[in-house]
Every structure is written in C-alpha cells, then in structure tokens.
C-alpha cells in the first residue's frame, strides 16, 4: 500500500496529473505481472492542491490513517518543504519525483527524490551550447515567483559565473504571465548570442513564439522545465536550435523509454512528459526495493525495512540508469537521497528533441 500525494486540482494540477498517470501506469504494469512477491500494489491517491497545509494534511492522513508504506509526492517543492518534516518525523519515506529545489533532501534521512538536480545537468548543457554556438554573452529570463524556476535560475547563475560568461540582462516573469514582450524587447536590445531560460514548458513555448515575433533570433538554452513535448505544440518551429539537458526525452531510443512512451500514449491518449517519466521510474525503484524486503505486516518495521532497502536500488528505467546519492543535512549529518544520473544533451531539430552528438 503506497500513498500518492499530488496536486490534482488547482494551478499545480498541470504537473500533478501527469505524475499521477505515471504512477498509475507503473502500478498497473507491476500488478499485471503478478505484483511484488505475490502482493498487489495498492495506490492511495490524494489531492494536495499544491497548498502546503493540504500537503501536510494529506501526508498525515496517509501515514496515520491509511498506514501506507511510503509516500510519493508532493508535486511542488514548496509543499515538500512543509510535508517532508512530517514524514521524516514519522519515519516514513517521502519520495519526491518533481521537487528540484535546493535543500529538499537536506531535511532528513527519510526524504528521497529521483528528480534530477539542475546542478548536475546545467553545467554540461551550458558548456555544450556555448561551444556549439560560440556564445560570448547571454541574456537570462526566469520565473521569479516559483521555487522550481527560481532554483533553476540560481544554478544557471552560478554556472555562468563559473564559466565566466557575461550576462547582458536578467529578466523575470511571474506564474500565469502570458505576455513576455516587454522583457523580450529589452533582451533584444541587448543583442545576446543566446537566451538562457529557466521556466516551464508552457511558458517557454510562449516565450519562444513571442521572441520570434519580435524578430529576436538568438537560440534558447533551457533547464529541466523545457523537457516536455508540450514545448512543440505551441512553439512549432520557434524553438529550433534550443539546447536542453536532461536524463529523459520522449525521443530517447532506449527500449525502456520507448516502452514507457508507447504505453503511456496508449493508456492516456497523450504524450508523456518528464514528470510522468520520473513518476513511472520512481515506482519502479520503489518496487525494486520492496522486492528485496520481506513484508512482515507490521507497518513500522516494514516502513523501516523499505527505508533501508531504497538507497541500494539501482535500475535502468525510462530516464536511463539510476541510483541514489546521499546528501548532507544542515546539521552536517547524512540526510536524504538525491538522484545520481548522467544527463544527456538534446537539441531541438524539426520540432523534436534530438540527442546532441557534437555536430
């Protein structure tokens, strides 16, 4: 019995719903194969609305009432900051699949995530793009009222400092904005070689279209958030030449991924995105851990056993080879676990992510 706490209504539902779908898909597949050591997986899905109080309430309900073995979620980093300590105190694993903010896993040893840390990905992305486009200076734009895009920006900023690339201007927008022309006009006036953007696919796509509409031709370099086929629905060809680094892309040809993409499309009639892929993999990881332990029926001991088994798991899923890496808490003690994955660099060609091979 596993708890799923994701935002299924409200503004964050755009992410929460695909994540839920990813879990559901993985669970159905596992159960269709006879479950884990003969036990079927039961998902207890709750809506946390992307609000911190709701996330805490849902966590508590899952832990104390439904007595689940572990919890996946919540959707937003902000909610994890509120709900994580609850799980940690109750000695229940909280496994985030979409929380990228700094400091998540530092909250305690029961906090896990398989969402890639931007700090692992972006240096490579930037270096590759700079080399390819012979970039001398860049402009930056990011969403500044959202923990996800802001922490992406923080990493970009550090990377740019480390690689000594001058920034012509730094612009921001807020969630729900649809008109970025003011910022883009300003960016255009500074004439950068590329635009670095930490944003979600929806906003990024609109940004690209509006940039081209204003005659701004510099290529984009994006973070994690770009990684969704949604990007092309709007941007069409406006995103050509964009560099994105990620362990996952819908076009990644590994069999595990192609199976996932096909199965997802068949079940939900839509293209999966990275959030769904990470959720799918996360459940696969948990299943691997569960397989390695003996379920005793006592919730507390089973939870502890699961907690012990999880860090040892290493799989190769839709997002490629995966293992955990332990982080260090604020107090200097070993804390939770982050993903340890090698990113790939993709470039957008003809409205598709193409693995960048140096050409």
């Amino acid at each position, binding site marked *: 019995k596993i708890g799923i706490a994701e935002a299924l209504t409200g503004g964050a539902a755009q992410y929460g719903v695909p994540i839920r779908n990813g879990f559901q898909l993985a669970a159905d597949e596992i159960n269709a194969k006879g479950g884990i050591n003969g036990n079927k997986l039961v998902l207890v899905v709750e809506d946390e609305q992307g609000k911190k109080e709701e996330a805490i309430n849902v966590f508590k309900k899952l832990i104390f009432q439904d007595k689940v073995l572990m919890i996946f979620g919540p959707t937003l980093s902000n909610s994890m900051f509120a709900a994580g300590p609850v799980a940690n105190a109750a000695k229940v694993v909280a496994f985030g699949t979409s929380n990228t903010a700094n400091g998540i896993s530092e909250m305690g040893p029961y906090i896990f995530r398989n969402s890639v840390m931007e700090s692992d990905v972006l240096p490579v992305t930037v270096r590759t793009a700079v080399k390819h486009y012979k970039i001398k200076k860049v402009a930056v734009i990011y969403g*500044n009222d959202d923990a996800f895009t802001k922490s992406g920006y923080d990493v970009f900023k550090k990377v740019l400092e480390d690689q000594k690339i001058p920034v012509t201007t730094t612009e921001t927008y807020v969630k729900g904005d649809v008109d970025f022309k003011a910022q883009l006009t300003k960016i255009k006036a500074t004439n950068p070689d590329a635009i670095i953007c930490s944003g979600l696919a*929806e906003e990024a796509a609109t940004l690209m279209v509006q940039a081209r509409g204003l005659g701004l031709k510099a290529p984009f370099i994006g973070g994690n958030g770009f990684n969704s086929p949604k990007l092309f629905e709007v941007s069409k060809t406006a995103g050509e030449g964009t560099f994105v680094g990620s362990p996952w892309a819908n076009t990644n040809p590994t069999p595990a991924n192609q199976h996932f993409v096909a199965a997802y499309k068949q079940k939900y009639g839509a293209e999966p995105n990275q959030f769904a892929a990470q959720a799918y993999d996360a459940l696969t990881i948990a299943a691997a851990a569960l397989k390695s332990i003996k379920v005793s029926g006592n919730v507390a001991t089973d939870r502890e056993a699961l907690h012990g088994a999880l860090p040892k798991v290493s799989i190769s899923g839709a997002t490629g080879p995966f293992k955990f890496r332990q982080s260090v808490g604020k107090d200097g003690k070993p804390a939770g676990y982050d993903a340890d994955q090698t990113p790939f660099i993709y470039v957008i060609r003809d409205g598709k992510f193409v693995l960048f091979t140096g050409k």
Partner: protein
Amino acid sequence: MLEQQLVNALTLGSVYALFSLGFTLVFGVLEVINLSHGAMFMAGSFAALTVVTRLKAPLAVGILAAMLVSGLLGLAIDALILKRLRARHAPHLIPMIATIGATTVLTSAAQGLFGVEVQRFPDELLPTREFIFGSVHVRALELAIVGIAFLLMTTLFLVLRHTRQGRALRAIAESPKAAALLGINVEGLFLATSFTAAALGGVAGLLIGLNFNSVTPLMGQPILHKGIAVVILGGMGDIRGALFGGLFLGFAEVLSKAYLSSQMGDAVAFGLLFLILLVRPAGLFGRVLERKA
C-alpha cells in the same frame, strides 16, 4: 526599443481593458464585484475552442459560441443566484462570495470536461499576418485586439450615454428603487446586463486565448486581480475608466519592466495605483458622492 515597448504596452493595456469592460459593467449596474468574470472569460475560450475543433466550424462561429455560452452562463448565475440574493436584500459582499462559489464550480467543471492541461487552437485558424514597421513588430491579432477593445468601449459608452436603455441602466446604477418607480423593468435589465457583461467577457477570453494560443481552466485567474485593479483605478462602473485604467496598467507594467526591472513590474504598477488612489480616492473617473448633510 521604445517604440516596440509602447506597442507592447498598448496591446497589453487593451487586453486588460477588454477584460475589464464586462467586469466594470456588472460592477456599475449590479454593484457586485463579480469574481466569476474570470470564469466567463475562460468559458468563452473553451466554447470557441470546442466549436472550432470538434465541429470544425469557422472562427466567426467560434466567436458567436463564445458570446452565447459565456452570456448564458452569466445569465444563469444572475437568475439562479444573484437575483435571489437581491430579493433577500443580502448585505454587501455576500453576492461576491456567491460568485467565488460559482467560479469554483465552473473551473472544476472545465477541468473535468477538458482536463487540466493547456489546450490550443488549430494552427490553420490563427491569423499569422505580421506587420513590421522599422524595428517594430506587430501581429494582426494584436491589432485586432486593440481595435476591438476600442470599438467595444466606444459602442458601449455611446449606448449608455445616449439611448433609452442606457439612461435606464444609469438610473438603476444609482437607485434600483427609484428606477422601478419610473417603470423600468429593473430585474429584466439586471439580467440583460449580466448576459452582456458575461458575453463581453467571453469574447475577451477568446481573443486573448487566441493571441497567446493557450486555453486552460484557470486562465481567468491571473488576469482577475489585474481586472479589479483596472476597474477600481478607472472608477467603478465607468466605461472610460476601464479603457484608461487598462491602458494605464499596461503602460505602467511594460515601461517599468523595460526601464526599471522586470522583477518590479507588478510592484511598480500596484505601487502607482496605490499612489493614484491616495490622490484620487474614487479612481480616475469616479466622483466622490458625499451625501449632503
């Protein structure tokens, strides 16, 4: 760069003005802060989208569908909820809370019907003409939005100022009781206003959905409090106020993003609004109606 920014400000301002038009109408006539106006906006977009994608109807039919569906929703909210609250002399702000409830219901319904993800209009429908004047780029759709915003404003303004119904509406706005004694069908005009305002909201939603090619159940929310700002800045219920308030907010936002810092765009816009209210306590066009002692 300045020319382009001015054009950007004009289009953004027109978007705000267009949204606020119906909002301010309801505000002025029914004295209700109708927080479901964002939902009307959303409903218009979805109605047009459905007609256009499912029935393969041309865009013009989509516009009609947007007006009709939003208008009827607005009518329903008025007839089923607001009308009863008026009859019961519900205190101030209670109708506003009812419209919050209506919004929740409508957005949930939209999420159930259409899913939570962003929907798009089919490409072939999007007018893609673009005009380039020197360094200034404008899309045809943006010009259309500016044009329609000004056109609707002017029409509505003239109707209110110079027709029998317009006079009646202004009478109701001041005192429904006095209006009733003049033989004005107050309830009928309330319903008509709700319909018109919602239909205007629907058209605004459609145009803006088209412009940014993004339709979601929650698309009405971010613009809602900008809309409130516009309406109050302009002066409650004043059509000119909606236009000038919208343009003001558009310009304040764009220019502060362009010349100060984009982090502070909204802060500057709201800060200015705060200052303006201190100087003009009833908005740009509002008059303080102090009861005579």
